[in-house]
């Protein structure tokens, strides 16, 4: 099986600071792949490089064998890569379901003429998009908010809403940046279930996460970063017993 996401010798320097240095790994389709590491290890920078928000200083990222390091985020979405953010990016000027329907953007082919005169093709597409979006909101567990203004929703609900929006784009791989940050134990358990359900649908999940219990429970493989470099890579069992990881986390 070929890798869905392949990262080769990726580096990013901000001035003299090497946030990510010489990182290589590959993620196979259908896996839950987590990136962990202490604060400032370069996890979010790595995600930003993969998803096109940053341009790498050197190295390359491949999606399905195609080099994507120079593409814009919207071009990556067209190729099946979608993400959420640690600092949530929700359109607060819209309702909850409109945020999810925004995720359907690429599947809704609309031109200016059908839009301005609101021809039947447009209303049909909108109806279908609304139905799909409502189902996705139900799936992630914020179905009760449909027409609520996003600005009136709780933090936990918004986190789930952001995942629904990413799924609405029908991605092959979805990158979740600290989805459990700020969630309580009950919400984290629900999140774990949700990630499992997403993976069961055949969507590859990449995860940056601090919650070790969550990560160890659901990941197929993990990548441990420290000071921008790869400290270890392997299955949860291998990582748990790796002496370098134990030293970095417990200060040996």
């Amino acid at each position, binding site marked *: 099986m070929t890798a869905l996401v392949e990262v080769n010798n990726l580096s990013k320097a901000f001035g003299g600071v090497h946030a990510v240095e010489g990182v290589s790994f590959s993620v196979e389709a259908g896996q839950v792949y987590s990136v962990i590491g202490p604060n400032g290890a370069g996890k979010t920078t790595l995600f930003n490089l993969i*998803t096109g*928000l940053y341009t790498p200083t050197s190295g390359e990222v491949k999606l399905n064998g195609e080099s994507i390091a120079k593409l*814009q*985020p*919207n071009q*990556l*979405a*067209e190729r099946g890569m*979608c*993400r959420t*953010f640690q600092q949530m*990016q*929700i*359109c*607060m*000027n*819209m309702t909850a379901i*409109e*945020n999810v*329907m*925004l*995720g*359907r*953007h*690429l599947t*809704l082919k*609309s031109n*200016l003429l059908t*839009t*301005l*005169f*609101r021809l039947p093709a*447009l209303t049909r*597409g*909108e109806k279908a*998009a609304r139905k799909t979006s409502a189902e996705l909101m139900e799936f992630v567990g914020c179905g009760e908010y449909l027409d609520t203004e996003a600005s009136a929703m709780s933090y936990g609900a918004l986190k789930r809403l952001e995942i629904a*929006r*990413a799924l*609405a*784009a029908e991605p092959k791989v979805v990158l979740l940046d600290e989805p459990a940050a700020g969630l309580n134990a009950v919400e984290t358990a629900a999140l774990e279930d949700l990630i499992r359900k997403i993976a069961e649908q055949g969507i590859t999940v990449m995860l940056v996460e601090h919650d070790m219990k969550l990560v160890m429970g659901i990941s197929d493989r993990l990548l441990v970063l420290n000071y921008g470099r790869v400290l270890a890579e392997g299955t949860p069992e291998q990582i748990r017993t790796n002496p370098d990881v134990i030293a970095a986390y417990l200060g040996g």
Partner: protein
Amino acid sequence: MMAQFSQFRLKGLVFLALVVFALPLFISNPFHYSLATQIALIAGAVVGLNLLVGFAGQISLGHAGFFGIGAYFSGIMTSNYGWSAIPALIVGAVGVAIIAWVVGRPILRLKGHYLSMATLAVGFIIAIILNNEREITGGPDGMPVPSFDVFGWELSVFGQYSLFGMEISGDLAWYLFAGVVLLVAVWLAQNLIDSPIGRALRSVHGSEVAASVVGVNTAKYKSLVFVISAVYASVMGALYGHFQGFITPSVASFDFSILLITMVVLGGMGSTIGVIIGAVVLELLPQLLADFQEMEMVLFGLILMLTMIFMPKGLLPTAANFLAKRRSKAAGGDA
């Protein structure tokens, strides 16, 4: 029935239509008709500007420039080259669309103050050209514009027309025409907003990053809405010129650009009906304050300042919010 109507997506348009068609029952003075026509045409341009400012969250401090190009192109082609008004209006709008596209691509990469300055410069350049090209535009003295015609049928404020068997004056005919144009402008804008394109535009305002990671090409949509709002201004400018019968470079001036933006902000950014109220208020206020003579501008400024401080969301959204709160209180809610 009432509940159903409050959910209807074009309820604002229905209200507006009622107001537009009921107004002639209350006014009959040619001056009032002239004022109402002028307001309707300017409001149309403001509705277009609101798509850019209120929905997509971008700014243009040079929008009067596009209004001016529309007015002058139609004026010049009809008076000097014998064109009919409709083709002049359409060709002018296409020209403005091209200019807005070419100018918009690079400057819409800018954000905040930088975008303000760039659009300001665009407006200034257009105003300077209109002022300096004396042979074509008449320079600062302005130029006369022939009355509006639709394939030989002429619409003039001095004419007499019959509509559904009723004799109506040219003033009223122009007013009804401008009112219908405004209603169409609002209908098209509302259709644009309630669509995938509209969602993409609003997401550029809400979170550009969020928009891009789900596949929205934000640069393309910013250019698109800039072009659409410029076309709105151009069309309204062309009609405005024909209605006034005489135009000067002030239609493209910095002052007028600022007035258009103020109408959007005062009425309520992102509220199509709100910005029309903004246009009505800002056009009527100077008339009402005329009695105060030299104090007029001071009062005008004071009213604007107080509105901005106490109703930062604009007139209509603030009023709607207030009513909603009152209603939930009356219903025993704890809001």
